[in-house]
């Protein structure tokens, strides 16, 4: 676990131990580990002199952060109103079936994490699916299969 502390320490130094950089610091840790490890959060709170509960408040408020380890690939299905009426829920249940996990969970082999979002701001191209920042427009159930297969092949890209 000391490795985590060392990494977090260098992140903190990069941000000059500034309280107002809290979100940026958490983003860096999230990018490094794909989630926010508990000891990292505790260390950040202690070093910045911010109550731990406030760090947790921020870490749980934003969807970009996760307290649970996420998989290598993050699949986000839009369930906003526009995507909803265009079949978002069907796309989601197809992912649920294909990956055999429910939204918010990660596959056992830590390869995929499935999440939902309420509108990504690009309703015109709905239903929208985002995988690791790549947008898939006008998704259909058939496309789900090809998306899953594409990323199932891609192994570690650390």
């Amino acid at each position, binding site marked *: 676990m000391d490795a985590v502390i060392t990494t977090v320490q260098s992140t903190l130094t990069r941000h000059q131990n500034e309280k107002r950089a809290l979100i940026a610091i958490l983003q860096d840790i999230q990018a490094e580990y794909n989630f926010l490890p508990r000891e990292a*959060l505790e260390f950040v709170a202690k070093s910045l002199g911010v*109550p731990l*509960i*406030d760090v*947790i*408040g921020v870490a*749980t*408020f934003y969807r970009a952060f996760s307290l649970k380890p996420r998989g290598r690939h993050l699949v986000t299905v839009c369930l906003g109103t526009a995507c909803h009426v265009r079949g978002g829920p069907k796309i989601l249940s197809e992912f649920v079936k294909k990956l055999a996990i429910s939204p918010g969970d990660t596959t056992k082999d830590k390869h995929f994490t499935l999440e939902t979002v309420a509108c990504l701001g690009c309703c015109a191209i709905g239903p929208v699916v985002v995988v690791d920042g790549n947008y898939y427009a006008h998704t259909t159930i058939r496309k789900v299969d090809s998306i899953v297969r594409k990323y199932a092949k891609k192994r570690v890209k650390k």
Partner: protein
Amino acid sequence: MIELKLNGLNVKAEEGWTLLETARFYGLEIPTLCYNEGLSVFGGCRLCLVEIGEGPKARLVSSCTYPAEEGLVVRTDTKRVIEARRMMIELMVSIAPNSKKIQDLASKFNVTQVRFKVRNEECVLCGLCVRMCAEQMDGRAIGFQNRGYKKKISTPFDLRSEECRQCGGCIYICPVCQLRCQGPEADTTLCNACLTMDPTCLDHYDELQCWMYDAGRCGTCVREK
């Protein structure tokens, strides 16, 4: 001194007063839930709503957070205010029907129906406990987590907090933990017993026989159904 109009009266408020403080100074009762004199204001429960401005521009604001302003027209008992207040109470009953404080508010403001799914969540997210812990107990052990419908109050990682000194301040101030509504019909969502209670002793005497009715706890004489 700030001069403003409160329910048609010209009144004066001190610099820095909120509308709630002004109204209370003049003896007007405005119900509150998330407000507490010893804590910072939060403005979350919306029970203290009042209407400001006139005509089509009139709008509802929470009086506990809105500062008294020069020339402001404030009305505390308009139809709109009363209806909004009832709606807030109705929502709160649906979330935490076990709270005596909330049931009492429902009785007092004549909330007679609950049209929402009862959730029994035991917390209305008023944030009193969080502020109590941080501001009066120097604790910072609990706080809000998540957001939207997943929002909750907890300690970091939902574990026993090292910062908590188990003073009980959070429980003391919580409108839900504090006192259970134990009205005779408490298994229905809306108790309203305090509102409709008819002391049985009055069937036999022409005055109340004990203090329990005034204390809001008439046992109506050890009711048996």
